[in-house]
């Protein structure tokens, strides 16, 4: 433990160097803006700025501190467009729209932005502290998570998300199936056969998650806005000056801590990232709270949970990268590449060979999280004012930004057709009363579930008992059972009590 503290101290000496400190602040600020733009997320932000950082001839520790600042700054910023515009700023911010945007529409945009900034701060800081204390241990555990354990994790995720089932379970189920179908497009890894590609080369590798998110959520929302505007039913919002209160924080403190744990755990696993983490945290929170009615209509806990989780996951993904040289997410893969570009070999020996980089980066993450909170809170009022821009200017602006965002990443016009088509499709689904969240979750969890199930079965040569052979799996299946059974049991008890006290039928309309 002494080594940890002396390492951290030397790290702070590196990170507090005035030049590096400035880079942390610049990175965090730029990251917030990049994350806030729909379509451009952390992965693109880091990829775009990597050559610039390299070209300016920074020292490796300075460059990596800047890039990491952009990474977690973008995770912070993703929430802004989710809350204000109902358009996820990046893939990890999809769940944030569910309660964040209703809050903004209720005139609590300021409160939503400030509360989520605090939740992000706690999630991010929680992750860095755990990484500092137990990094190598955690990474050693994370790699023991086998394909069959991922299957169990996905079963757990599906079970906790079953709580998303709204008023119409059939439509939710259909939505999830549509998500699964979208996920099956592309070359099948286990046989090398192209599925549902219809000879179009652009979708041979599947549809990018970002394209699905921007299309289904972003474009559908814009079409919806235009429609409202044409009908004249669009309300202009007053400037709201709401802000998070101590009472809100007291009410969400356990939510934030729980979600930070979930987010961090899922983040350190090499195969899963912020999008899965925030989904599981949201589902679990809804289950834990047992009053799912207010969730989805602007519940502060439904906002705090995914935001704490996606920032904790971003921190968690750094653990296997720094300690084992294995990237835990797309963005950490680029950071890994960046280190190589600077002739630094990430991996088990980095803490001994290049401590100034490893510890400097960790220390900069502490500073970065504080900086993000300090940068974000005063900006809340400014961002909230975005909503007072008349819709006829705002809608086309968002559309242009989303198109540029998607095109700038891959320069493939095909993706622009895709988001337009998916947007139309999403809009029609909304018209028919479908919720889009199950589609996205079916898409993310479905492909992870399928790939890992088939990996597990290739390992065991087709023997299904492999799914129950590790403690990780067993614990997850027990948790799944709890998540499914306890709310039913609890619901019956409440119903029974209600039936006794009020003399009326407790059954909700089917």
């Amino acid at each position: 433990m002494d080594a940890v503290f002396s390492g951290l101290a030397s790290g702070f000496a590196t990170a507090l160097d005035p030049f590096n400190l400035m880079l942390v602040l610049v990175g965090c600020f730029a990251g917030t803006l990049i994350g806030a733009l729909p379509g451009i997320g952390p992965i693109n932000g880091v990829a775009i700025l990597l050559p610039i950082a390299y070209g300016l001839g920074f020292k490796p520790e300075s460059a990596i501190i800047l890039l990491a600042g952009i990474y977690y700054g973008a995770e912070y910023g993703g929430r802004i467009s989710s809350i204000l515009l109902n358009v996820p700023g990046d893939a990890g911010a999809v769940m944030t729209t569910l309660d964040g945007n209703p809050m903004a529409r209720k005139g609590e945009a300021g409160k939503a932005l400030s509360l989520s900034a605090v939740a992000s701060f706690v999630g991010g800081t929680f992750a860095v502290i755990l990484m500092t204390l137990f990094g190598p241990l955690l990474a050693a555990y994370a790699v023991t998570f086998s394909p069959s354990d991922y299957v169990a994790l996905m079963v757990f995720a599906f079970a906790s998300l079953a709580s998303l089932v709204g008023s119409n379970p059939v439509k939710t189920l259909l939505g999830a199936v549509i998500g699964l179908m979208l996920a099956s497009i592309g070359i099948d890894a286990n046989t090398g056969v192209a599925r549902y590609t219809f000879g179009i080369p652009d979708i041979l590798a599947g549809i990018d998650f970002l394209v699905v998110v921007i299309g289904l959520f972003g474009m559908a929302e814009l079409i919806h806005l235009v429609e409202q505007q044409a009908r004249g039913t669009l309300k202009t919002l007053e400037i709201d000056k709401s802000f998070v209160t101590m009472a809100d924080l007291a009410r969400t403190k356990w939510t934030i801590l729980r979600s930070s744990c979930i987010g961090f755990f899922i983040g350190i696993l090499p195969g899963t990232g912020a999008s899965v983490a925030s989904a599981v945290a949201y589902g679990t929170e809804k289950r834990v709270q047992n009053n799912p009615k207010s969730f989805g209509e602007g519940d502060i806990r439904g906002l705090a949970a995914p935001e704490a989780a996606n920032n904790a996951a971003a921190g968690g993904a750094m653990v296997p990268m720094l300690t084992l040289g294995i990237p835990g997410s797309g963005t950490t893969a680029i950071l890994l590449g960046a280190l190589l570009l600077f002739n630094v070999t990430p991996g088990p020996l980095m803490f001994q060979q290049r401590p100034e980089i490893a510890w400097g980066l960790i220390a900069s993450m502490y500073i970065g999280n504080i900086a993000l909170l300090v940068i974000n809170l005063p900006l809340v009022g400014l961002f909230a004012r975005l909503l007072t821009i008349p819709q006829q200017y705002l809608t086309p602006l968002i559309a242009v930004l989303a198109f540029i965002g998607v095109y700038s990443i891959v320069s493939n016009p095909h993706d622009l057709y895709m988001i337009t088509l998916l947007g139309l499709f999403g809009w029609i689904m909304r018209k028919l009363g479908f919720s889009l969240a199950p589609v996205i979750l079916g898409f993310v969890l479905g492909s992870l579930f399928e790939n890992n199930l088939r990996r597990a079965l290739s390992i065991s040569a087709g023997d299904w008992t492999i799914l129950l052979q590790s403690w990780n799996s067993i614990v997850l299946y027990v948790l799944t059972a709890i998540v499914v059974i306890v709310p039913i049991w609890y619901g019956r008890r409440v119903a029974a009590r209600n039936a006794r006290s009020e003399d009326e039928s407790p059954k909700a309309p089917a």
Partner: protein
Amino acid sequence: MRLRLFASTLIAATVFAGVAMAQDIERPECIAPAQPGGGFDLTCRIAQKGLEGVIANPIQVTFMPGGIGAVAINLFNTTRTDDPNAIVAFSSGSLLNMATGKYGEWNEDDVRFTATAGTDYGAVIVRADSEYKTLADLMAALKQDVGSVVLGAGGSVGSQDWMKAALLVRAENLDPRQMRYVAFDGGGDAMSGLLGGSIQVYTGDVGEMISQLDAGTVRILAVMSKERLPEPFADIPTTAELGYPDAEWAILRGYYMGKNVSDEAYNAWVDAFKQAYGTEKWQETVKAQGLQVYSVAGEEFNQEILGRVDRMRQIAKEAGLIQE
């Protein structure tokens, strides 16, 4: 963002126009046909850094993911067939796709192979505490029961990662279709699968093993090459010297251009690469990315690649990847 980059490149181009540099390529661009962060990204970074100073204007890297290179080759056969400014990164994996017809109607005759970035080699990797101490141990186990060993790597069945495993199995005259191969999503996941014990053998690339080698977490049973590699891999035996000359897999990385580019534009790039190959800086850049220096450019290179694709097509047929 792109617009601004474009604008600044344009300004830079006009400023530098008067300056006499060795090569004048107006708006040099390297297309990495994948998401940022992978091998194609790395290939373009080598050109970006290695050609600095040889080409007047900085090379811009553009990402074009989709179909493991299919989207890029499609674009360069439909709209940008004669683009003098752009090179596209490719690897042996792309060549395998051409050989097995994964790129639809396009194959190796539809592009002009321009230059190499460098080369890497396949490696047979096990965990440091594995029961397989040598390649002979592993091959004996495979021979006894080909289904008893769990192999895995970062690519799907039919990809070059799978090919490395298949070549190994075939070297003992066993059927690759009988092997237990686990397809992970990228080398990182496959590596954690190996360290975590999900798979017993990882058929990865030797270049990415530098960090693990020093830490002593894994053991490389063999490098899939003819001759020994230089330090830090000099102590690792090759498949050829261990008696499996057919289990050789070089991962070539390089660049191609559109099929209709003028000889002038093609030669401008070829000359730029040839000039850079001689410099210390190029060699260092290549080595820093974990690749071996391998420098060939021009028509000679184009011919070499055509030969390679033919050989791959043969192997793919024998491995059952191409049905007749």
